[in-house]
């Protein structure tokens, strides 16, 4: 049971994990679990989605499909703040989270974990700046 108080001041951020995110959308139909977040774009998908379809935004640079190692390294099971965006250009939320050019879907506000250095360098070589989404970078 969570605390019922809505306190915007000193809050204890609870990072939720994949284990507790078992809720289903409708009874009887198993929806894909949202249990991994792409560290680059913040997209939240299930492990199998990453494996089968890859990350809809980052597939061209990270190549998740059928690559368990990359999925393990570049997605995080520990994230917080679930955002569902429509993909509209007028959404400030999407702009603020820097996801306005990405496909509609679920994104995480905060993702624990950083991309490994080699992948970071690889991205840099492709002209992509990696900005960690774990709250360590403030700008």
């Amino acid at each position, binding site marked *: 049971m969570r605390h019922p108080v809505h306190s915007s001041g000193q809050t204890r951020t609870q990072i939720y994990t994949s284990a507790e995110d078992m809720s289903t959308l409708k009874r009887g139909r198993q929806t894909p679990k949202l249990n991994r977040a792409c560290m680059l774009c913040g997209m939240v998908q299930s492990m199998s989605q990453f494996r089968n379809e890859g990350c*809809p935004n980052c597939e061209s640079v990270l190549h998740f499909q059928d690559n368990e190692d990359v999925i393990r390294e570049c997605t995080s099971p520990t994230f917080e703040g679930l955002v569902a965006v*429509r993909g509209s250009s007028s959404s400030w939320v999407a702009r603020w989270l820097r996801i306005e050019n990405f496909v509609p879907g679920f994104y995480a*506000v905060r993702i624990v974990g950083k991309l490994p250095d080699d992948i970071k360098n690889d991205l840099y070589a492709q002209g992509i700046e990696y900005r960690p989404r774990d709250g360590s970078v403030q700008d």
Partner: protein
Amino acid sequence: MAAADTDPKRAVENEGADEDRPGEGSLEGDDVGDDDDDDDEEDEDEDDEEDEDEVSRRRKKKKSGNQFLDVEAEVDEDEDEDEDEDDEILRQEFLADDQNMEPGETEASRSHRKLDRTREKLDEQDAQALADQFKARYGRSASARYMGSTQNISQRLLLPSVEDPLIWGVRVRNGKEKELVKQISARMANMKGTQEVYSVFQRDSFTGYIYIEAVRMDAVNHILSSLPGIYNNVGKVLVPIEEYPDLLRPGSSQESRLKPGSYVRVKIGKYKGDLGIVDNLAENDLEVRVKLVPRLDYGRSNNSIIDPSTGRRRPVNFNSKFRPPQRLFSDIEAQQYDAEHLTTAKRDRNYFIYRNEEYIGGFLYKDIKFNQLETQNVKPTLHELTLFDSMKDSDGIDLQSVAATLKNADEKAISFQPNDRVEIISGEQSKMKGKILSIAEATVARVLLEGNEIESDVNNTIVEVPTSSLRKVFLPGDHVTVIHGVHKDESGLIVNVKNNQVTLVSDQTKKDIMVFPNYLVTSVDSSTTSSKIGRFELHQMVNLNSHKIGMIIKVEKEVFTILCTDGRVLNLEPKSIVSALDFNRMTEKTTDRNGLEIKVGDVVRETIGEKRQGNIMHIYKSFLFLHSKTVYENTGVFVTDSNSVQTIANKGSIVSSFKVPDLNKMNPNRMPAPPSTFLANQARFGGRDMTINQHVSVRKGPYKGKKGIIKDANGDVARVEMHNPAKIIPINKSDLLFELRPGSYVPHEQFLENYRGRNAGFNRRPQSTPRAGAFNSFNNSGSQPQPMGDKTPSWSSGGKTPSWSSNGGGRTPSWGANGGGKTPSWSSNGNGGDKTPSWGSNGGGKTPSWNSNGGGKTPSWSSNGGGKTPSYGGNKTPSWSSNGSGSGSRSVWGGDGGRTEYGAGDRSVWGGDSSATKNGVDWGVTPTVGDWDAPTPSVVKKEQHE
């Protein structure tokens, strides 16, 4: 593509046209619209035909349409194009047409055409979908080659403006936030009219809320409509624009990030709940290398567990419920029991790999996923820290990290008291020892440095130190109580003090307890076994010498700790105590600063100083020995002066009903007759209370006017059973009117007199008339010293008896004359005085005093007494004044004890008066009475009378 170019309708038209010309239709029917040439040709054909009869063309069209189109569609077209005039004809024709099918047109060819059309349609759809698929597959990835376009724009430029959509906070059921985000997201994709909702999100730090980004409120309402888990009646909060970034901040800065050395707890698995120390962090922050105390049994339990189903041994999977105890890794045991799993990777003697896990220095080093660790608010217990500490002597408990970890712990529980020995653990005076003098604000202590051998020059200086940087110092042998932690409230004797750990033997369990010294206080409980030694016992008042009194607050073997009346604490041997003081509980009384009586057991509070509150344990003169549970020093006992305390609660006292002296009662003029002290006393002497079973009427208070019967009486208070409401209520007798005979009521005093007189008269002279009898009997009783005999000699020796009796005698007939003894009639009845001279002079003269008191019911009586008989009045005044402080004073007057107190003269109300010695001389004119004179004109008048 051919399929895409083809217009089905046109194809149908072509067919229809073809059909018009026999022979051609069957040929071209199958490859409709395949060829551009064909198309052109047919167009021309159509043009030609247009010139011809219009009706026939339509007919053809009808005909063709009939064959290739649905009937309904045909009708539709008809309505669109046709004129109304020939509507009827056409319909007839087309019906006829339908039946007169051309013989060449077979059912088979028709179905062929139909099949062709559907196939064509499917082809067309497939192509569309294919295009979409291609677009989705290649088009997106080509265009979205990781479009982090705003990545290089500073977030400051992304700050929200008024043009941006609004964000509403919606109250939802706790715990349903994520699910609702998902549901709303599904609605955003599928539901119509939700275009204006741009995003929806939740944050774990804002439980019970989801946030919806939209332009307009009704869009939010629309998307939320009939969603379970939304609290609609709470209303939606429009988040202020400036707070938008806070809603989506990635992490709060307060959140402590794990560092090597941080304490964590394992959340799942065999080591669940165990404390770990972070050794290192994995590069991607997802795994943590944690140092743990292993739980190993070296495979021994494998032998004992036999799977019942297979009958074979199976390896035990330990879990959080069933697991070996925490113990450091022992390579010897591993060698002995489970050697095949032990590999020594390095020749370093402390590094082992056992069952694929690393053990360094006896500890397990294990990579654990971040989400399997509890990282917040981890408070290691001393036991756990000791486990980690046990291996290395050099590496003691890091006090800094302990302190940092315990920062969130409840530090208020750690209390320091004056005289605690402390050591300063941080700051400039670090490592200095001293003694606490006082604690100003619970967080800052004044410490007198002493006992420092290294830098002895700082000794005897007083420093102010925050209590957070103090550590208590205890010595083996101290008796302490644990005030915080798991062992809270246990007490025991310290057997060992080492660094920051204190070992004590619990009084309760007789076991060793290890605690931090700051969790201890010197025991407040005096040792229960030795509360009495020889003649003296705990909390007894003792005489130390001729002028020194104290109370024993602590009993130790052969030494008493005694709190003296001046507040000093002495440690004395039993032989230096002169004697024990035995107080009579009844005499241990004094008054507080408001003049209220206080006695042992009452709760009082200081009005000045620390405003301590406590139970009175003993009263010695004006010194109160109080006990408070909130005071730690001197085992909670302190001494204070009775003039500086205020009564909080009385123990079983009636007096507690009023807090301040009632000034009205001090004024004899405003006061109804004193509740006739001696009469009441007399009443008491008479055995059974004569008021019992009397019919009464209440003349005062909330029950005024109600009637009842006295069921029980005790002193001044009668328990009256009211007629309505039917219940028994305690009422002061003076507030009652007694029914002598139906319809006639007299006040209590009069009732008593009457009752006494009547009884006496009837008893002694049954032959006399009631009036004479009463008169005589009263004279008799009055003249006889018998009722007075019970009184004090001074009172009777004062020569009042005659006057009183004459007075009473004078009055008695007037009562008789008036029959009912009704006060008003008696007072108004001037001729009543004729009977007796004394009465006559009084009544006839109508002295001012009498008049002035005439308003009341009894005053006439009292003024009579006061005005006429000085001695009587004089008597009354002091007795009345002493009455002011309560019922107890009646005994002061009547009883011997009161006299004693009176005579003692230094503690009673009278104590302050210099006239104490003069009291015996003459009541009426003593300065004492003079004090009371001012508000009592009757006394003055009395003097005039004389």
